[in-house]
């Protein structure tokens, strides 16, 4: 059974010049102890999806519909206090900016204890022990000393490790990592990705990894959902998606990523012409049609349904061929 099931999620924002359909009919599931990557470019709705799961969006301008079932309970129907019991406890989140997500005037120890104190009834000594264990788990040397320090005394990579320690302090079932390594240098990124993979192997936590970087996806994800303009356009296992992409957008994205060693002299990158559509206007046909090399009249008129085109491979494209399926 899936740990998290999102069905037909719609997150729309009221803005001064119309409704922004940031997420428009998204369905996906996260299975126990798997890493699901949600990939897409800025504005595709990947971060809004994660904020919708934790209900961190401003409620006065947001309209959410559909359902997000976690352990069978619909998160969208819970009261705010029930939601507080889930955030940081059963579902926790790592944000992109390790520089701004920690409170600069509180010690690291205090910030880890805060999460534990909110969700567990334990003594101060137990909390300290737990905080120290968490820092050791995320590979911070000399954890006892670091607990007394403030965020500015740590490097960017260390701060992201502290964020991970806070997120894991209550043994969550689901960890949402929103661009966890985007702000880090490559050598530090490699360390953090290795850490996330290790933690998952040890604690069997499910991870939703939100990223724009297909290289990071290849590194630690099991399955991938590709989002474009608020919708899911393709979903497959990581091997399948990277070696046999079927949606023209995914094909374009993979071609646009420069790869070391295949560059050669003056090899051109694949360009995806044009721009992401304006989400404030309703799009009748396929959301990618205006940039798609394969688009025909059909694509502008009818939105393609998400269909299974190969085993465990779902694509929303009129022209994706079926393969390997029993007739």
């Amino acid at each position, binding site marked *: 059974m899936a740990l998290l099931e999102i069905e037909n999620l719609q997150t729309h924002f009221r803005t001064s010049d119309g409704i922004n359909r940031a997420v428009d009919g998204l369905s996906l599931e996260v299975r126990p102890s798997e890493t699901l990557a949600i990939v897409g*470019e*800025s504005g595709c709705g990947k971060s809004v999806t994660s904020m919708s799961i934790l209900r961190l969006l401003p409620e006065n301008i947001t309209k959410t519909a559909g359902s997000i079932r976690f352990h069978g309970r619909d998160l969208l129907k819970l009261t705010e206090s029930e939601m507080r019991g889930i955030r940081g406890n059963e579902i926790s989140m790592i944000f992109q900016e390790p520089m701004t997500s920690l409170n600069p005037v509180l010690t690291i120890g205090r910030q880890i204890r805060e999460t534990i104190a909110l969700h567990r009834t334990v003594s101060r000594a137990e909390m300290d022990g737990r905080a120290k264990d968490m820092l050791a788990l995320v590979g911070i040397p000399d954890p006892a000393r670091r607990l007394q320090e403030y965020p500015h005394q740590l*490097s*960017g*990579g*260390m701060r992201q490790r502290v964020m991970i320690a806070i997120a894991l302090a209550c043994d969550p079932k689901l960890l949402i990592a929103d661009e966890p390594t985007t702000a880090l*240098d*490559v*050598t*530090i*990124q*490699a*360390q953090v*990705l*290795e850490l996330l*993979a290790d933690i998952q192997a040890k604690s069997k936590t499910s991870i939703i990894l939100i990223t*724009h*970087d*297909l*290289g*990071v*996806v*290849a*590194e630690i994800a099991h399955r991938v959902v590709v989002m474009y303009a608020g919708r899911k356009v393709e979903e497959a296992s*990581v*091997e399948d998606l*990277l*070696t046999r992409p079927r949606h023209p957008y995914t094909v*374009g*994205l*993979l*071609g*646009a*990523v*420069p*790869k*070391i*060693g295949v*560059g050669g002299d*003056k*090899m*051109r*990158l*694949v*360009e*995806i*012409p044009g*721009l992401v559509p304006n989400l404030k206007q309703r799009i009748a046909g396929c959301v990618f049609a205006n940039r798609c090399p394969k688009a025909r009249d059909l694509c502008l008129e009818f939105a393609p349904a998400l269909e299974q085109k190969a085993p465990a491979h779902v694509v929303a494209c009129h022209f994706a061929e079926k393969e390997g399926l029993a007739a």
Partner: protein
Amino acid sequence: MSPLPSQPLLSVKNLKKHYATKFSLFGRATRVVKAVDGISFDILKGETLSLVGESGCGKSTVGKTIIGLLQPTSGEIELGGARIDNLSPDAFRAQRKRIQIVFQDPFSSLDPRMRVRDILAEPIHNFGLARNAADLKSRVDDLLDVVRLPKDAASRFPHEFSGGQRQRIGIARALAAEPDLIVCDEAVSALDVSVKAQVVNLLQDLKDRFGLALLFISHDLAIVDHITDRVAVMYLGKIVEVAPRGPLFENPLHPYTQALLSAVPTPTPGRKTSRTVLRGDLPSPANPPPGCNFHTRCPLAFDRCSRETPVLRSTGPDQMAACHLID
């Protein structure tokens, strides 16, 4: 005197940029950050040299010193055989036309209250390149055409454009002065994958069309592999390896280059087995380790590395590395 063909366009000799961060009672510097600590390189006409390294390695400081935004602490910068680092502001103005820069952030590097037309006209006007108003207009139109923006862009403001389009405006502004060299300081880092590919391809075309030399400052090795002729790898203010693109990516000699290359995630499934994950963080440039700067994180370090600073030595045609292992 016309420069000989073999003479480099830009020659940087033993460039240093130190910042004093703490002073004694009598104003003597007691703590000095050596952001750039004695680097030398040449750029030939029409050549692309990439400066790569992690945050804080000094690569952006080098770029800013070359275009005269920062004064070097010591060292020489020669443009076409004549020194430009010790010129008076007036004398430097004429040289500034020859070196332009494209900044990283397309949102903050354009004046929001100027129309695109005026943004592009400013350098043309400043350097007295246009004969009359009609010439100015046709130059602006040409520039927009060259960076593949529509003609009507001229009358619009920066906020009406996407990130990729703004970066094109930034590139057009750099081209407006008809420079010999453009410093691209992380010019594509802030862009989405598909847009990044468009801008990288554009830069390559422009370089071929105008015979421009580029100093391409980047942390993204995959992009560098696509665009560069030669690469200089920096670590804590020093160049640790310089090589043409082919040898650097196929046979990196310095352990830091090797680690940097192996840390880049590539969108091919399956985890890398031969990855060298560097331990620890970048040391502070205010307090660099003794001997080889890299020995604290180097997987191959031995006792000599902590005592003796390795110098750049030639290891092959155009290739140099600073490591005790290659003696």
